């Protein structure tokens, strides 16, 4: 029997394994019929202790397109967590009902706790402001398909870099590739946490800070926008003051490279004007689509299905 694998942090996967997942996702896109029955009689449990649209739906669509079934809940109030059941107990129980579990939890480290008890693979679908590795896989798949490579890129990260878990995970993944340069674009209050800065420095990665989006745009290959999230603030006043700090408008793209791509983990509020949607450089809805394919590849990988 092969070793039980989980995906809690993006670093649980080697660069070679990520490359493999991207390759499989590409093959799924090219040959969807070859995969449509491959998970027949397999069940995915989606345990979402906090609301999600894209992540939960993309996991559901991924398993359905692989011919498998899906069960689960989409908010803590409809689970026994509302009665005070621990994550460990919930996972022990669900391990008996499903072949693989995708979970989202508002508390950081909950999937790690789950993985200690689970007898089936656990996929972290986001734990508070901590990790969101399948979003990172989605981002890598998108960058790879749009740019044809994952090395030698200047990546601008804009918006909430303090609480934005997608940004932290993306940095952690990209520093393992050669020739990556980051431009951090955020208000001072939403700067990267110190541990991420330390990680960048320890990896010897070049990174700079800019306070105006316009100043950064011309040099970027990838512009990764993020939402300033209300739920990450304890103080409503701070949220209102900072939420409109960095908005991308169509006119600003005039200064961008022709082949730059604009990414966003979605949902957006107003940080990307809708007039950007029609620009060929807008890649965020394509990115959401890639999320389904890379999750299909991940499910196959963790289930050990070739």
């Amino acid at each position, binding site marked *: 029997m092969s070793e039980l694998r989980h995906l809690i942090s993006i670093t649980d996967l080697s660069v070679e394994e990520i490359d493999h997942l991207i390759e499989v996702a590409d093959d799924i896109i090219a040959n969807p019929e070859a995969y449509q029955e491959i998970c027949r009689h397999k069940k995915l449990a989606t345990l979402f202790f906090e609301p999600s649209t894209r992540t939960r739906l993309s996991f559901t669509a991924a398993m359905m397109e692989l011919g498998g079934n899906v069960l689960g809940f989409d908010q803590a109030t409809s689970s026994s967590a509302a009665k005070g059941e*621990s*994550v*460990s107990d919930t996972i022990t129980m669900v391990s008996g009902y499903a072949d693989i579990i995708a979970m989202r*939890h*508002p*508390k*950081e*480290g*909950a999937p*790690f*706790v789950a993985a200690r008890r689970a007898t089936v693979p656990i996929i972290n679908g986001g*734990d*508070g*402001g*901590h990790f969101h590795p399948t979003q990172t896989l989605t981002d890598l798949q998108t960058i790879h398909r749009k740019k044809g490579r994952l090395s030698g890129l200047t990546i601008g990260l804009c918006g909430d870099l303090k609480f934005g878990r997608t940004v932290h995970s993306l940095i952690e993944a990209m520093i393992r590739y050669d020739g990556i340069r980051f431009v951090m674009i955020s208000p001072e209050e939403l700067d990267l946490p110190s*541990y991420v800065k330390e990680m960048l420095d320890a990896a010897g990665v070049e990174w700079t800070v800019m306070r105006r989006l316009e100043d950064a745009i011309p040099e970027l290959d990838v512009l990764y926008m993020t939402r300033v999230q209300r739920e990450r603030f304890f103080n409503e006043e701070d949220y209102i003051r900072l939420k409109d700090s960095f908005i991308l408008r169509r006119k600003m793209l005039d200064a961008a490279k022709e082949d730059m791509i604009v990414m966003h983990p979605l949902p957006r509020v107003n940080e990307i004007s809708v007039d950007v949607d029609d620009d060929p450089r807008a890649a965020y809805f394509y990115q959401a689509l890639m999320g389904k394919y890379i999750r299909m590849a991940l499910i196959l990988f963790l289930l050990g299905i070739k």
Partner: protein
Amino acid sequence: MNIDGVRTGIVLDHIQAGKGWEIYNLLGLDKVDCTVAIIQRVDSGKYGKKDIIKVDGDIDIDLDILGYFDTKITVNMIRDRQLVRKVHLKLPEKLTGVLECRNPRCITSVEQEIVHQFWLADPEKKKYRCVYCDAVYEEKK
């Protein structure tokens, strides 16, 4: 090092002067069923002044806790009035059930039965991170 009075047990030497009682409580020495002596503000060639704790009894002490507290402490193991082993402490790679994560977003903040665990992220800065949420442990000011 004077190990007088200890037949079989432990002598903790080079405790920072004035910290003897803290170590005594940290190791739960108030609960052991043997003789324990705290000697305070002894002259020390190395540190000027130091505290010493002598335990005359065959007990186990948690070297990880002690190492986290102060790596300068020397642990002398005594058997039949002879020094049989001298342990120089180092920062433990993992700390289990010693520190408590203070991140309100950490899973340990809501699930009380989870044992708090930290790993040594930076030995030079004595920085420990929670294994669950990666938050850095910060001492209470």
